[in-house]
């Protein structure tokens, strides 16, 4: 197991660890025993289950493979990885890290492996050389002895600590909207037994309330996971029919708060204690805990011994469990359907727009009157009336570039700006300027798009949209004076005045009587100016 994973990559090189893992395993060939390689957020492991000599052969092959990657397979493996990614089911909590951490370190697991598009041989070699070394590795074997003949011939190097966690959600607890009728809530808790017990208590209460008692959800569960960081993640997942998701949300929040504010009942606490202790009394518990302990060893977190775990569960109190629940609520990130956002009391919206727009030249979109692309000295913004998304050049983690000229920039905070050259006049000048400001390492060249994916602005549609945006705020006024919806009397009044005004104007010119024109203007005023009622509050 190596201390390298997706958190060590950048958005532009994402997937590079996974690629190294594939290239290292290629030479091992067809398996007699079950073997595999796995890349997670914080670690990469190569595992095999089998007899002693098979283990020795496999691990020696892996080490040889890492020292001398099968680079001739680079193009093939890239394609394979893309296929793997497109067939892998998307986990329901995939998007939470993005909203919590942004497009960097711990948030990268939410993004596709864009590195497959642009990674070059020397980058892959460099990566393998830096991270897959002797000091950055741990070997764990579940068995009665260490097989003889292990060489583990790896280069020397250093142990890589976990990168610091960045934050894209300035205020927690926070929520973000997603389309699916599913609720996902995760929070960070200390790695204590009380926190693990809290996760189990939450799991049990959600299942009991949402599935059994109220029948709102099929899945209603919570789980406690660790990845070598000094804190654990508790994730709760609740699904429901679209028309019942509001009730499910109310129930989820009520149960979570209830756990935080009131102490768990003694009988429930004893049940949880017994369940946890039963799990730890399994004779193979130490073997089962090995991968987690290896991860902790690599990241430098002192993980508890089995004895300490048992003692922890024996001595935990209801108060500690509700304190863990309080920490969970305080650090929670909640994914919910957008239509129900107003029900998440106490949760702030995670930022969907940047705080500011870049200052510089504004380019109006051909497709919409009030969409602007702003290219400033230090960044680029896409501004719509609701707000602006801004990517500062210094914070740009990746820029996708298509052969037709389109660009998509990703900011470290998760904001993104898509530039479609067909939508903006003088686009080439803008694109050149942006390209010159983005470091070469952040640029990802994408394959050509289908013609139907490239937007074609329509002048007529743009004009229609503009007319509508002018009309809608004035529609109530129009209704009052000139449409049947405002009442037939109002309409007759308006028509009458309009006729009078036209008649007066015509006669003013026809009979050279300018005085009539003054009268016409007065009448026109009566048409336009109608008193409004100012009801307030």
């Amino acid at each position: 197991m190596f201390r390298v994973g997706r958190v060590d990559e950048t958005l532009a090189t994402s997937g590079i660890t996974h690629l190294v893992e594939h290239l290292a395993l290629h030479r091992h060939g067809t398996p007699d025993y079950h073997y595999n390689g796995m890349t997670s957020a914080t670690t990469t492991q190569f595992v095999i289950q089998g007899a002693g000599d098979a283990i020795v052969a496999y691990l020696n092959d892996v080490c040889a493979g890492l020292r001398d990657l099968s680079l001739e397979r680079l193009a093939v493996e890239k394609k394979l990885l893309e296929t793997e990614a497109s067939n892998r089911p998307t986990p329901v909590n995939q998007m939470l890290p993005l909203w919590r951490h942004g497009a960097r370190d711990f948030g990268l697991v939410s993004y596709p492996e864009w590195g497959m598009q642009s990674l070059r041989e020397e980058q892959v070699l460099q990566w393998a050389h830096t991270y897959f070394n002797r000091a950055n590795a741990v070997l764990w074997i579940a068995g009665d002895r260490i097989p003889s003949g292990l060489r583990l011939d790896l280069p020397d190097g250093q142990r890589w600590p976990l990168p610091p966690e960045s934050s894209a959600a300035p205020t927690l607890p926070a929520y973000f909207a997603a389309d699916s009728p599913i609720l996902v809530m995760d929070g960070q808790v200390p790695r204590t037994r009380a926190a693990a017990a809290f996760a189990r208590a939450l799991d049990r209460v959600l299942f009991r309330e949402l599935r059994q008692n109220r029948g709102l959800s099929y899945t209603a569960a919570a789980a406690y996971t660790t990845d070598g960081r000094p804190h654990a993640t508790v994730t709760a997942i609740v699904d429901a029919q679209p028309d019942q998701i509001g009730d499910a949300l109310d129930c989820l929040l009520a149960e979570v708060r209830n756990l935080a504010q009131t102490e768990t009942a003694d009988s429930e606490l004893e049940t949880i204690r017994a369940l946890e202790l039963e799990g730890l009394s399994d004779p193979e518990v130490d073997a089962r805990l090995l991968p987690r302990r290896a991860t902790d060893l690599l990241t430098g977190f002192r993980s508890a011994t089995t004895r300490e775990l048992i003692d922890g569960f024996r001595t935990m109190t209801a108060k500690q469990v509700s304190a863990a629940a309080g920490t969970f609520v305080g650090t929670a990130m909640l994914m919910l359907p957008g239509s129900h956002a107003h029900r998440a009391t106490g949760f702030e919206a995670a930022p969907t727009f940047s705080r500011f727009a870049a200052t510089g030249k504004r380019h109006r979109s051909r497709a919409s009157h009030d969409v602007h692309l702003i290219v400033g000295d230090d960044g680029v913004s896409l501004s719509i009336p609701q707000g602006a998304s801004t990517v500062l050049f210094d914070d740009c983690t990746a820029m996708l570039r298509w052969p037709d000229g389109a660009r998509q920039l990703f900011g470290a905070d998760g904001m993104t700006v898509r530039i479609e050259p067909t939508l903006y006049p003088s686009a080439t000048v803008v694109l050149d300027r942006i390209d010159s400001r983005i470091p070469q390492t952040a640029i990802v060249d994408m394959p050509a798009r289908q013609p139907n994916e490239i937007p074609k602005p329509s002048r007529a549609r743009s004009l229609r949209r503009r007319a509508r945006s002018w009309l809608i705020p004035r529609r109530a006024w129009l209704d009052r004076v000139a449409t049947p919806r405002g009442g037939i009397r109002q309409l007759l009044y308006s028509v009458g005045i309009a006729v009078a005004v036209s008649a007066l104007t015509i006669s003013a010119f026809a009979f050279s009587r300018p005085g009539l024109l003054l009268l016409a203007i007065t009448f026109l005023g009566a048409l336009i100016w109608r008193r409004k009622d100012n009801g307030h509050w």
Partner: protein
Amino acid sequence: MHGLLSPTCRKTGLTGGVGSRNIAAVIKLLYRLSPVRTDLFDIYPDLAPLRASMKSGDWRRVSGYFEGLPIRADWSVAVRAVARTRGAERFLQRVVDSERDSALVRTLLGARFIVMAWDARSGLLAQYVKQAQWQIFHDYLNRAERLLADATTIDPTNAAAWTERVKVARGLGLGVDEGRRRYDRAAEHCDVPYLAQAELAQNLCPKWGGSLDALLTFARERLETGKPGTLDGAVLADALIERAFMEDDYSLMEQNLQDGSVRSELARAAEQTVLHPDFDPSTHGTVAAHATFAYAFFVAGDHKRMAPHFAALGDRSNWYPWGVWHGKNWKDTFRSARRAARKW
């Protein structure tokens, strides 16, 4: 005017023949010439430098003005004054993009959008508030919410932003609990958050999803725990008026406020707040509080008790609560009530 002037007119004996009715009309017309000032810049003279700097579009002077305010004072009135300035959004939007970490400009622009949202909604008769208007109302409120959320993220001690967020919670229907949470944050960082209390009182009204009990409990609790000689507790007048507003017609409303215990409760609240000897009459929010007390006593017909409030108000007033029942002609009602008070 639906005969609301009648108590006064009867006293002055001007309801007699045809000729005297004409005289009454002329007097009424002349009365309209005496201004009733509601512009916050006008009614609080210390806001004058702020108006000047807003007019000149000088952000440094605007922020300098706010930096000069005492830290735990209620900034909300100054924020509202800026927010009611027409066209201020263009200037403020520019500043938002150049002052990237300023909580103040986000508070001001958010407050401006709230005013624009309510203007978009209520500048029209209820029957004309169609889907499109609600859309605009919500659109502005969502923009305000985002800006104010940024402001409170940058500076969580910004009580004025939390105050505005209480109002957003009401407009967007985020629920009483959320409104209360926001008020608590405002109260944490402000000694006497009178405006936030008045906003929360609205949130707690049954028409916005609260309950009368919660409203009165909150207002009474403010009066009990508030420091005498400050505006803390004046919100009880808002609460009692809101309870009276729930009646179906004006005479029931009068009865509601004429009740002896209600009047003595109002009088006690007034004595502990705006009429207290230690009360500083230049406090922001004073006019709103006086106007509320004056209105309550006016509806109750208690001319003696409304007199000191009108004396303090002079030609200054506030739309709320006068305009709620009396509509666009509320200033006439205000003038005639003031005239009646001077008789004492």
